[in-house]
Every structure is written in structure tokens, then in C-alpha cells.
């Protein structure tokens, strides 16, 4: 037996053989189009025109107009993501577990209709919000006609316009995820608690919520990522020079308006770091929670 065959056998025993070559295109692809540009961007961000290797970062944090975009983005994304997750829980909780009858058909209809805003995307949502919530839009007309307000509410081209657009695109996303997590929890667990005398509120707080919490953490993360990268709606329904100058606008400005690529790369890096920090914090908290089977055992 030659040495090469022996090596191949030893590798095969550890699970390495020619079949792994099927992974090669995908791995090469991620390396060339994701890892390389990312490292290139980091490298670029360390070579600003002036100010030494960390010049671009220092310039970002020294300028309040730039630095505040981090807080602006978090101020939009965190409340929007929290609201989307918090609103999904009671609604999904009422809808779970109906597999027949009109409630089941209602559930199917609702999940189908909720997919619509996800596919509309932020650009169309922005256009719709401008028409609907604008000073002469239907929403303000109804408020004026019913006498709830005296003057039209200003709901677009400011913080609220962007916030509503984040809720419209983010809520269905969060709801569908929470619903699927809830469906994965065995209903017999709750029935068991009910036979032991637990009321509705107690069952939710002591049985369902702890089992659901890890799923909620994941949902929050995914919704937050969506809200954090808000760009088109911040420009179109927001106030892109002031109240809703989010970090992606700052990055875009640097790259395509001022052609300061090191600065743009630095902002992209900061954006990634801030986002990953929030996700790491949430997932770190999640790892303290119960993570196991959500189906009841035989006992």
C-alpha cells in the first residue's frame, strides 16, 4: 500500500474525502464575494487620506453629525424591533393551535395577508405612507372629520414616518416567526398545567413564555437586523438630513456623494460592529435561558 492511499484512508476516517469538493464552489464564492470585500473594506478604512491608520474612525467619532447617526439608528431600530416582537406575542398566542373550523381558516388567511407587506418592500411602503399619512392623506382626513384633531398631524418626513414603515415591514416578519415558534410548543404542556389548576395568565407566564423566550430572542435579532439597515424609507419618508439621518445614509453619503471610500468603509465597519454587539448581547442573554425540547416527554 502506497503512502498516498494510507493518507487518503486516514482522512476519510475523519470525514474528509472527495465528496467535500461539492462544497468548494460555495466556499470559494463566499470567500471571494463576502470575505475578501469585507477584509478589503477593513483595510481601506485604515488608510484614510490623513490622520494615520485610525484617522477615519477618529474623524467619525469627533464629528457629532456623523457620531449621532449611531444613536439615531438605534433610536429607530430598537423601539421598532421591540414593538414588533411585543405585539406579535399576544396575537400569535391567540392564534396558535387552531387546526380546524373557522379559526383555522382565519389563521391561514391572516398569515397569507401578512406576507404582503414583506414582499412590498420598503420603497413601496414609503410611497404609500407618503400618500396615506401625509397632511391631505386619508388618515388625517379621518382624524379631522371625526374631530379628533384640529390640524393635520405631521406623520411623514420625520421620525414617525420611518418608524411606521419599520412596523409595517417588520411586524409581519416578527409575527410569522413567533407564530411558528409557538406552534412548535406542545399544547399538552399547557393542558397539564391547567389540570393542575393554573389559570390562563399563569399558564402563559410560567409555561409558554419561558419556552418561547429563546425564539423571541432570535426573532428580535432578525427584526432588529432588518430595522437597523433601514435606508430607502429613511430617505423617502424620513428627514434624511436631520431626525432620521441613520448610519446607512452616512455610509452612502461618504461613498457616493463625497467619494471618501476609507470613510465609507469605516462607517460600514462601525455599523457592523454596533449591530453585532446588540445581537451578541441578546444572544448572550438567551444562552442563560432554557434551550431544549419544547415537546412534552412521556412521564
Amino acid at each position, binding site marked *: 500500500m502506497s503512502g498516498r492511499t494510507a493518507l487518503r484512508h486516514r482522512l476519510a476516517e475523519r*470525514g*474528509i474525502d472527495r*465528496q*467535500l469538493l*461539492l*462544497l468548494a*464552489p*460555495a466556499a470559494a*464564492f*463566499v470567500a471571494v*464575494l*463576502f*470575505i475578501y470585500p469585507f477584509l478589503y*473594506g*477593513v483595510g481601506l478604512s485604515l488608510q484614510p487620506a490623513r490622520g494615520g491608520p485610525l484617522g477615519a474612525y477618529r474623524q467619525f467619532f469627533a464629528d457629532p453629525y456623523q457620531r449621532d447617526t449611531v444613536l439615531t439608528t438605534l433610536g429607530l431600530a430598537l423601539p421598532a424591533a421591540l414593538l414588533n416582537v411585543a*405585539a406579535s406575542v399576544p396575537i400569535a398566542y*391567540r392564534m396558535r393551535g387552531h*387546526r380546524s373550523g373557522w379559526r383555522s381558516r382565519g389563521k391561514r388567511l391572516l*398569515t397569507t*395577508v*401578512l*406576507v*404582503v*407587506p*414583506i*414582499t*412590498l418592500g*420598503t*420603497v413601496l411602503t*414609503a*410611497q*404609500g*405612507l407618503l*400618500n*396615506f399619512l401625509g397632511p*391631505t392623506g*386619508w*388618515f388625517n*382626513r379621518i382624524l379631522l372629520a371625526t374631530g379628533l384633531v384640529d390640524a393635520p398631524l405631521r406623520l411623514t418626513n420625520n421620525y414617525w414616518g420611518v418608524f411606521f414603515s419599520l412596523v*409595517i415591514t417588520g411586524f409581519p416578519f416578527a409575527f*410569522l416567526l413567533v*407564530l*411558528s415558534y409557538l406552534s*412548535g410548543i406542545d399544547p399538552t404542556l399547557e393542558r397539564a398545567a391547567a389540570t393542575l389548576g393554573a389559570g390562563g395568565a399563569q399558564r402563559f407566564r410560567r409555561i409558554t413564555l419561558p419556552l418561547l423566550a429563546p425564539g423571541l430572542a432570535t426573532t428580535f*435579532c*432578525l427584526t432588529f*437586523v432588518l430595522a*437597523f439597515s433601514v*435606508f*430607502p424609507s429613511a430617505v*423617502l419618508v424620513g428627514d434624511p438630513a436631520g431626525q432620521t439621518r441613520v448610519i*446607512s445614509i452616512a455610509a*452612502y453619503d461618504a*461613498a457616493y456623494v463625497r467619494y471618501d471610500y476609507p470613510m465609507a*468603509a469605516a*462607517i*460600514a465597519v462601525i*455599523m*457592523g460592529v454596533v*449591530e453585532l454587539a446588540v445581537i451578541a448581547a441578546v444572544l448572550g442573554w438567551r444562552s442563560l435561558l432554557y434551550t431544549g425540547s419544547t415537546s412534552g416527554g412521556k412521564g
Partner: protein
Amino acid sequence: MRRGLVARPAAWLVWGLVAFFFVNLAGVIGSVVVSSFGTRWFDTWLPQGWTGGWYAQAWQEFGLLSVLLVTVQVSALVVGISVLIGVPAAYVLARRSFPGRRLLYLLFLLPILMPPITYGIPLATVLYKYGFAGHVSGVVLANLVPSVPFVILTMTPFIEQIDPAIERAARMCGAGTRQIFTRILAPLLVPGLLAASILVLVRTVGMFELTFLTAGPDSQTLVVALYYSMSAAGIRAQQSVDAMAVIYTTMMLVLLVVALRFVNPTQLVARVKEDVE
């Protein structure tokens, strides 16, 4: 039934909020549709008259035919290439264990977890450097970055469902890896392939950021063209922008209706297990 029609106040509050959300959603979509068919709409409940002229105008002004052709071309290429690259990788990840498997999985997860802008800007810089950006090829390459991992994540559970004994039997009968893929796995994976392709298609048509960062004047997809026409508002009639938005919505809705025939709504947002029937 445990709960009758007379529900507790908390339940009414919950359903009230859902109804409020849907009424507003209908208002948001409805106002765009109504505006696109209206003649003059200023400070009244409904436009003064009705016309279909804005569609003709939008079609000509924005060169919608070429934009639609680019959109179709980009989405078809992205779907095709990401399935070709993603499915073999999903197969290995689903079936095999090897050193570094978890790391590789995390690597495939990252492009989905990061906001497109964060990697889109460095990616666009690199694509401009090598002359891809500004053409259809650059747009396709950029859109592949989240699509390939997405195909891998969607396909892995479908592959896990197939009994490995079938493949072993085929090997016993002398089939090679290539034959196993084309004769055994491909027919069994048709539902999964359809689901993954449609999901990637919906995501690519709706993907704004990456296309926006890499597209040139003649490689814009519909959503980017819509954004440009909106941000340049004032030059063009609001209604023709609305007409374009309606065309985009209709296209997305058709895709969505097709998609929902093949996939569970929850799959559109993430890979999660099906309801237990």
C-alpha cells in the same frame, strides 16, 4: 369550545390592534392605487376624475420595458446560479460531518445576518475596481451574496428528509455521485428546489440595497428605478410614480401568489419547522 364569541376585553384589544394594522395597511396600498388612476387629487377624499394615462406615461418615461427585462434577466441568473452553487453545498452540509463544519455553516449564515449596506459598500468598491459594477454582471454577483447562503439554508432540511438508504442502494447498483444527483436526488428534491428558487426570486426582485449600490444606468431593476423616480419627485408627476409603484406591487403580488402555492408563509421569513399536523 373553550372560548366563545364573547371574548374577554384583552382579546378584543388584541383583535382591535390587528384590525387597525390591516386598515392602515389597506390605506397605504389603496392610496397608491387610487392615486395612480386619478387625474387631479388635491385636498379631497378622492381624485376629481379617473384615467389610465399615467401608466402609459410611466411606461414611456421610465423606460419600463428595459427595466423589466433587466429585472427578469438579473433574477433568472441569480436564481439559476445560486441553486447550482448552493444545492451541492447544502447536500454536503446536510449529510456529512467533517472538521470545520460548524465554522463553515456560520460563514454561510453571516451574509444573511449582516445588513446588506455593511458588506454592500465594500463589495461595490471591489466590484467597481474590477469593472463589474455598473453592469448586469455586477448586479448579479452582488445579489448572489445573500442568495447562495439562503439556498443552502432552505435546502438543508429538504435534503435531510430524504432517506440516505436510497442513495446507498443507488451506489450499490453502480451509480456515481453525478448520477446520484441527477437521477435520484434531483427528482426527489423538486419541491425543495421550487421553494428555494421562488424564495430567492422574491428576495432578488425586492432587494434594494445591493442592486442600488452596484447598478449602472442601464442595469437598474424595477425597485431601484422606482426609488430613483421617487427621490427625484417634483420633476415628474406624482401619479406616474404611483403608477410605477402599482406595476411593481402587481409584479410582487403575482410572484407571491405563485410562491404561496409552493411554500409555507413562515418560510418566506426564515427556515423554521412546519406546523405539526
